[in-house]
């Protein structure tokens, strides 16, 4: 009696008339007029699900900060403001686009057998229904969508035009991500996708979120062409060192932290299953970092920090699909393999002329695919060839859909508005060119680069060039290998 009384008193005292209105008016809740008198274990569990799902969503949101830092840290100081703006806008523009369109495509009732939805734009027909769960579910899904979108900015860093990028970012959130999402996850709400009907396992989105982001990044990086100075005349890649490893590392720690919400929160239910998921997540990240570190130590004779950071993320991406259906020992193996794979994958793309400044394609695309496959291979319910085949189907569908859709989208943008900044702007830095800004106005950044000749000469000097000398400077032609 004491506690019930206390709850009543508090809920009235604390929430006051505003919430009372809320409860009776907009939403019908466990604390509605009759409800308050009759809390049941079921209604409390439902409340617990709200709390858990939303806290997990907040953690996933925080991953945006992690992405911003990783991408800023792994690129040059002269582009830091720009990459941060792109990350902030991935969420801002993406959230609005997903609210308006994407959520409906992904989770609305579908009239086709593929599963793409066609009801519920602007959450319109959901809100009337009375069940506030749609808000909790939307909140969790919108931060997932933002994650997929933000992956792309890293691979396109230091040369993608800001205005066009915003359009792309809006469309990946409104269309590209939700359409594939509806195939695999539509039935989490009102939809029903063909992949989930086949038994496709992608618990928290190795494919749905990470591979989709990674393959869109691949198309983007490829269509943009490499950063000027990234390749020698003989097409040999040259490293362009990122300007702040501590910021990049902080980004990785933040992503790791947020990933617990990403994986464990995907239950959207606060129950005992979240424990195993969390353990698997932590262990795979750990072995991912170890795997990449050891691989570079063997190959390069030194434990490479950039790769180790990528390896940690690779482990996280890889466990995302199977975090709920593999054992901890399997998680150790899945993460370790991802850490090894990511090192070779980064080098592979680098050599093929795809310039991905942060390793997004390898971390999210390749390791997302690996993780999805692994969720089938290591399924703790036993190995089944059918499951593995369905996993491969899902991986392949994601690749084809995303590459095709991104290709069309970037292609149209390229021939219409242009997707790449001018050479002068690239030299001067996108901070100046796109935002007339400096990330670190008080610090002298090196004008004389290391290995990458255009790593820095471009800096402040070029800003001036760009600003006073009109359109075109003509640095000797052969030095530049801009492709876009």
């Amino acid at each position, binding site marked *: 009696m004491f506690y019930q009384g206390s709850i009543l008193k508090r809920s009235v005292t604390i929430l006051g008339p505003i919430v009372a209105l809320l409860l009776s008016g907009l939403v019908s809740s466990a604390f509605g007029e009759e409800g308050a008198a009759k809390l049941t274990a079921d209604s409390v569990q439902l409340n617990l699900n709200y709390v858990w799902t939303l806290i997990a969503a907040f953690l996933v949101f925080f991953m945006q900060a992690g992405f911003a830092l990783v991408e800023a840290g792994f690129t040059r100081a002269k582009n830091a403001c720009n990459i941060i703006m792109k990350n902030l806008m991935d969420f801002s523009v993406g959230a609005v686009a997903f609210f308006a369109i994407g959520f409906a495509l992904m989770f609305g009732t579908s009239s086709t057998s593929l599963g793409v939805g066609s009801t519920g734009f602007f959450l319109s027909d959901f809100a009337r229904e009375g069940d506030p769960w749609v808000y909790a579910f939307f909140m969790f899904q919108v931060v997932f969508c933002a994650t997929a979108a933000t992956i792309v900015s890293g691979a396109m860093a230091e040369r993608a035009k800001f205005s066009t990028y915003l359009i792309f970012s809006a469309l990946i959130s409104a269309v590209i991500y939700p359409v594939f999402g509806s195939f695999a996850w539509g039935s989490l709400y009102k939809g029903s996708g063909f992949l989930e009907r086949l038994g496709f396992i992608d618990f928290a989105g190795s494919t749905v979120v990470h591979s989709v982001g990674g393959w869109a990044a691949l198309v983007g990086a490829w269509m943009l062409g490499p950063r000027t100075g990234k390749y020698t005349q003989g097409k040999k890649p040259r490293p362009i060192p990122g300007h702040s490893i501590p910021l990049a590392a902080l980004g990785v720690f933040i992503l790791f932290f947020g990933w617990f919400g990403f994986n464990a929160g995907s239950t959207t239910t606060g129950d005992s299953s979240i424990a195993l998921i969390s353990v698997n997540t932590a262990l795979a990240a750990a072995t991912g970092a170890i795997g990449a570190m050891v691989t570079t130590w063997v190959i390069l004779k030194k434990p490479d920090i950039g790769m180790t950071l990528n390896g940690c993320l690779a482990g996280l991406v890889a466990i995302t699909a199977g975090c709920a259906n593999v054992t901890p020992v399997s998680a150790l193996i899945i993460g370790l393999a991802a850490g090894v794979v990511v090192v070779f994958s980064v080098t592979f793309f680098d050599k093929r002329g795809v310039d991905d400044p942060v390793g997004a394609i390898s971390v999210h695309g390749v390791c997302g695919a690996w993780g999805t496959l692994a969720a089938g291979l290591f399924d703790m319910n036993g190995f089944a060839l059918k499951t593995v085949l369905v996993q491969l189907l899902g991986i392949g569908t994601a690749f084809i859909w995303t590459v095709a859709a991104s290709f069309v989208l970037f292609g149209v943008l390229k021939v219409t508005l242009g997707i790449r900044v001018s050479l002068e702007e690239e030299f001067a830095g996108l901070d100046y060119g796109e935002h007339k*800004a400096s990330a670190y*106005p008080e610090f*002298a950044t*090196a004008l004389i680069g290391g290995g990458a000749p255009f790593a820095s000469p471009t800096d402040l000097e070029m800003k*001036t060039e760009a600003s006073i000398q009109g359109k075109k400077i003509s640095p000797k032609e052969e030095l530049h290998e801009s492709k876009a």
Partner: protein
Amino acid sequence: MKKIECIIKPYRIDDVRDGLNGIGVPGMTISEIRGFGRQKGHSELYRGAEYAVDFVPKIKIEVVVPDSMVEQVLETVIANGQTGKIGDGKIFVLPVEESIRIRTGESGEDSL
């Protein structure tokens, strides 16, 4: 011996350095400086307001050579540093009375 000081555009540094190495200049010293001259600076935005950054970043190369090499050095710097645009920079030649290599104590042209 002469000391040749060249103020050049930063992105020409790789070519100028390679050019000087090519003609056998034994060493050089480089620093980052800020130039004021015909070429003017630019403006930036900060939280909604514009401000002028009135200098232009430049690189200074200092190289000490025997008198006999001066002409060659000047030509090389011009050839590699020139873009034809305002702000390409200057070369100044100053007399050097003595040069010493710290490692060995050698002096004169041998020490370069």
